[in-house]
């Protein structure tokens, strides 16, 4: 195969795999930020906390990190509901959710990072399953399982969530609360409870993303800083409240980053990827799958 074509093909494939990780990290935000209008800037920090928990539990129990991520997701769901309770009680209920709510989640982010340093130390933590050192070679294309396995888990979790949101009453209520909480109240559904469940789901997704991240790379308490800009950009590019849009935007981000890195060097990757974001917003201000208000 022509070397340039091989580079392109591998850039696209590795970009799609990277997009799987980005989708895992951004999908939870699509719920909290996109559907609930809660600027949870602590989402990547919670993802890293989940990753740390995966390392500790996985090491202690001898379990696969992705399995641990799934098993601990209910605990993170509960954590999410508790966080929302606090946020609602102190800010949203009083109409202070805009600036003070943002400050709240900034504080949560800070507490999570420093708390991890105090409890676990600042060192890198890792938990490598055996398959993380295996690379499938499909002709000219390399597919490292280190990237493939987390991407598949992330897509499966997002697909399950999407089905839940489209088929279940609670899922439809979550979609409704994003549009009109008062209308929901008229139908005898407590919008605060629905929001609490939705926020819990978003943090449960952070658990999945944390497990995916651990397989991809070692983590440290400050690792979340790498993801903050990207996950918000992906969420916005996808159309805020749209899970399919979020996945598509994550793939686009990953592919643009990696193809750019292949041909023009990695220093151009963020500029070109965020340039795509601007381009998308210029032609579709509502994002790829978003609806105009």
């Amino acid at each position: 195969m022509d070397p340039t074509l091989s580079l392109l093909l591998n850039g696209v494939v590795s970009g799609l795999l990277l997009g799987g990780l980005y989708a895992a990290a951004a999908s939870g935000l699509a719920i909290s930020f996109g559907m609930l209008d809660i600027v949870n800037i602590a989402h990547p920090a919670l993802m890293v906390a989940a990753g740390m928990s995966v390392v500790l539990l996985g090491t202690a129990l001898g379990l696969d990190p992705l399995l641990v991520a799934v098993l601990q997701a209910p605990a993170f769901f509960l954590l999410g509901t508790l966080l929302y309770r606090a946020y609602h009680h102190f800010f949203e209920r009083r109409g202070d959710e805009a600036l003070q709510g943002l400050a709240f989640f900034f504080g949560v982010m800070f507490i999570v990072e420093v708390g991890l340093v105090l409890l676990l130390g600042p060192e890198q933590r890792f938990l490598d399953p055996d398959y993380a050192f295996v690379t499938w070679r499909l002709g000219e294309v390399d597919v490292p399982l280190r990237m493939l396995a987390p991407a598949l888990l992330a897509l499966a979790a997002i697909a399950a969530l999407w089905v839940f949101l489209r088929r279940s009453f609670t899922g439809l209520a979550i979609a409704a609360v994003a549009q009109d909480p008062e209308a929901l109240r008229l139908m005898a559904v407590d919008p605060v409870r629905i929001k609490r469940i939705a926020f819990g789901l978003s943090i449960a997704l952070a658990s999945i993303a944390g497990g995916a991240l651990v397989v991809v790379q070692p983590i440290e308490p400050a690792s979340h800083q790498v993801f903050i800009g990207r996950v918000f950009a992906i969420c916005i590019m996808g159309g805020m409240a749209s899970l399919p849009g979020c996945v598509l935007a994550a793939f686009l981000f990953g592919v643009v980053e990696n193809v750019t890195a292949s041909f023009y060097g990695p220093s151009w990757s963020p500029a070109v990827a965020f340039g795509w974001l601007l381009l998308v917003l210029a032609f579709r201000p509502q994002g790829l799958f978003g609806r105009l208000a």
Partner: protein
Amino acid sequence: MSELTRRGLGRTALAGALTTAAGSAIAPWPALGQGANPIRIGCSMSLSGGLAANGRSAQLAQRIWAEDVNARGGLLGRPVQLVSYDDQSNPANVPALYTKLVDVDKVDLVTSPYATAMIAPSMPVVMQRGMCYVTLFGAGVNERLKYDRYFSMNVTGDDIKGHYARGFLECTKMLPHPVRSLSILAVDNDFAQRAAESVRGMAREYGLRIVYDRSYPPTTVDFTPTIRAIQAQRPDVVFFASYPPDSNGILRAVSELKLSAALLGGGMVGPQIAAVQAQLGPILNNLVTWDVYSPEPTMQFPGVVEFQEKYRARAPAEQTDVLGNYLQPYAYAQMQVIAQSLARIGKIDQEALAKDMHANGFETIVGPIRFSALGEWAEPRNLFVQFQNIADGDLEKYKKPGAKVILYPPALKSGELKSPYGAPA
């Protein structure tokens, strides 16, 4: 007498400590002789954030030094007390912390935070107050400032561009076959860019044609496409200038794509750290990279073994690097410089300290040191080591000679180069 530690503080008042970490004073050392007018030495250190791994282990090393000194009766007959604040790895926090240390806490002496990015913003405060300043792992900070009370505990010397990559390129002469092509990949930060500039500038002298020369942002997650682009150029020699955790990502991608080269490594920061060594295991085998310390027989300077024994006994409980084979001996030596100078002049006088440090040499656990006019090491000592016989991630081997063999400089050389990178142990 109770020891007030940062962790202890955190455990008893976690929430409060967390939310006020930026502004809280930390005095993690024994409050020895508070009635005996202790000599107070202040610094900011990265105890959280991206630089915390090295910051916390440096702090442990300095704490061990303070305990050693106090056990011997202190300095100038007074106990030593260290005062430290967490700069959160954020350069913007540093000037205010040094202002507080000097103007409010009225410490007698100041030492630096860890690394160039944190040292640079402290310089205006330190210079305005005329403090004698011994820094830790800064690179070229004083190049333009030319502050005559600045002294650097770092092996890079005055001329990073002219010296840094020399050792790596000298290793090409040890290869069985001549090499022709070189690829360079460096992270976008000051130190790595200087390292890349150094190898770029000397490549022609070693008959190397540069076939790939790129930078990457510190936020890069996936290095696979970049390594593949390097692989497409088929370089004989590969030079990376990277920081953790990028070094880890780069070497994982190198392993996955089976990139091989006669000489691969360069100025990578990360493989010196125990956690990285544990994770990467055999991926490190035959990697040739910059370093500052290796427990080879040629580096057994007086006191270093005793220091490492104390450090390693406490590191697991402190949840910091368990080996102490990187900056930790230098953090201890940084304090030895201050102690020896104080002992010579017999008083705390910033001007006299600086004059003494310029005029005299120091015997430290990292060897004898003299400072240049710029305050850097007069004789640069960039080590280039090769990881050899690494078959797994067990860390015990790194406590003994043979795992990180010194190839350069010749005076410290402890083994022969093995090539290529990618060959099994």
